[in-house]
């Protein structure tokens, strides 16, 4: 691609007379090689120019006609920053077990609170262990290597796999040697 030198000092703030439309026309020949160049340029799109279609609905707050409420058939935790459950929601994987208890605790705190989010991360990690236990109970040990896509790693990055294996073996060997020596003492 050819290098294009642009006069970076040329912008609205430096030149109150700046005419966006005129600039587009003048510059267009330079960019003939780019299909659609400048076609959506909008000189009015200033930071203060709203992206939303302002309707004044904000001032009605939550007094709008809500869609029909989805029946609540499973436990749904909801943010304490809203008064109710939204009209629709996902019903998959309702809180259960120890992770569920932690999630319930998390939702006592607002979205502003780190306690809310860190508790949810903790619940996620416990949930992962619960998942493995559940797999073992129902289907036997999960094939973690397959789930992690190691087949693809072997197919496309054999060198990397070998390198990782060698590093793992070396680190393990060093660790074993160190522990043996320590035990001898």
């Amino acid at each position, binding site marked *: 691609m050819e290098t294009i030198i642009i006069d970076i000092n040329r912008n609205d703030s430096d030149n109150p007379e700046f005419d966006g439309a005129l600039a587009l026309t003048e510059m267009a020949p330079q960019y003939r090689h780019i299909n659609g160049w400048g076609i959506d340029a909008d000189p009015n799109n200033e930071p203060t120019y709203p992206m939303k279609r302002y309707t004044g609905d904000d001032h009605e707050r939550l007094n709008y006609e809500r869609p029909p409420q989805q029946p609540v058939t499973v436990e749904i935790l909801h943010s304490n920053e809203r008064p109710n459950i939204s009209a*629709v929601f996902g019903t998959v994987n309702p809180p259960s077990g120890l992770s569920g208890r932690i999630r319930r605790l998390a939702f006592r705190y607002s979205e502003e609170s780190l306690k809310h989010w860190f508790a949810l991360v903790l619940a996620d990690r416990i949930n992962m262990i619960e998942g493995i236990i559940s797999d073992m109970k129902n289907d036997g040990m999960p094939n973690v290597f397959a789930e992690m896509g190691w087949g693809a790693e072997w197919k496309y*990055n054999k060198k990397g796999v070998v390198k990782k294996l060698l590093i793992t073996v070396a680190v393990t060997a060093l660790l074993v040697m160190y522990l043996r020596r320590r035990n001898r003492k």
Partner: protein
Amino acid sequence: MEYRGPNRVRTKQKPYPEILHPQDAIVRVTRACICGSDLHIYHGLVPDTRVGMTFGHEFTGEVVETGPGVTTLKTGDKVLVPFNIACGSCPFCKQELYSSCHESNPMATAVGGIFGYSHSAGGFDGGQAEYVRVPYADVGPMIIPDDIDLDDAVLLTDVVPTGYQAAEMGGIKPGDTVVVFGAGPIGIMAAKCAWLFGAGRVIVLDCIEYRLEFVKRYAQCEAYNFKSIPDPVLFLKKQTGNYGADVCIDAVGCEAKGSIGQTIFGEKLMMQSGSAIALWWAINSVKKGGIVSIVGVYGPTGNLVPIGNVVNKGITIRANQASVKRLLPRLIEHVRSGRIVPKEIITHKIPLEEVSDAYHMFSQKLDHMIKPILIPPGIRA
């Protein structure tokens, strides 16, 4: 597809989804992408991602069932489904802020519902499946016009609108220098779209060589590997006459490479919401009075960014999840006219049954992957 914990996904037979609300539809999926932001939940960085969830917020499909309140769609319609779940009647939807719908996510008020994107985004199963429940079927889904290719259509559900809105939020003026951080699918599309708004120069920064080569070709822009640049901010300042870029776009989000400190503190220890180095660079390399547009995804906990420089430089930050429904009519025109050819960024079509390998490949950038599409069983690729 089923999530089992960080870096672990698999396929599993799950029950056929049910109509749970009068305005629901059930859609048989024909295409489902893996998005860069799916990697954040795959890596366990988004709180309240529960084991057993199905991911996938970029998909197309065929309507197989509708609830009694659905009036615009019928069985057999082929639809593209925006990633945002939007009611169309709350104040935010009425103002076309569809990603901020107040009636689709009980778990958090900061974001509306998103398909397959944790319980923090509503707890909906996503489209990396054979069938999916689509709430508010009259509002979000769009019937795919006959002349739009299915592979283009699926990319109109997120990638193209998000890249386009990144450029739109930049408030680009004719001749502006636009710097895009990240040469993933969104960064590629943001660079491409920056020209449509009259950018004079588009520069992309990333650290993956094959992606830089791709974006250079696809978006006709300059592309640099920040690993070969000692100080990316200084480099960009010099590239812009020691002035700073007019617009900087963060198209990376919370897994940005480039700072060991941010990676350890954010990604490994999770003491903040991932690594925010791309945003850090964006703030520091934009000109005084410039605009930083953020479409990269960050988690809810918070991030270390140079906010003092935002104040001192008088920077305007504009950010949001893309309002897909608002943008679709214009984007369809761009696809029709050939100004944007979304499907050119698809590098891999993978059977849904191989979802574990697909996620791993995308996460590790294997086989020069840029955009993978999952094809459910029985659907023609």
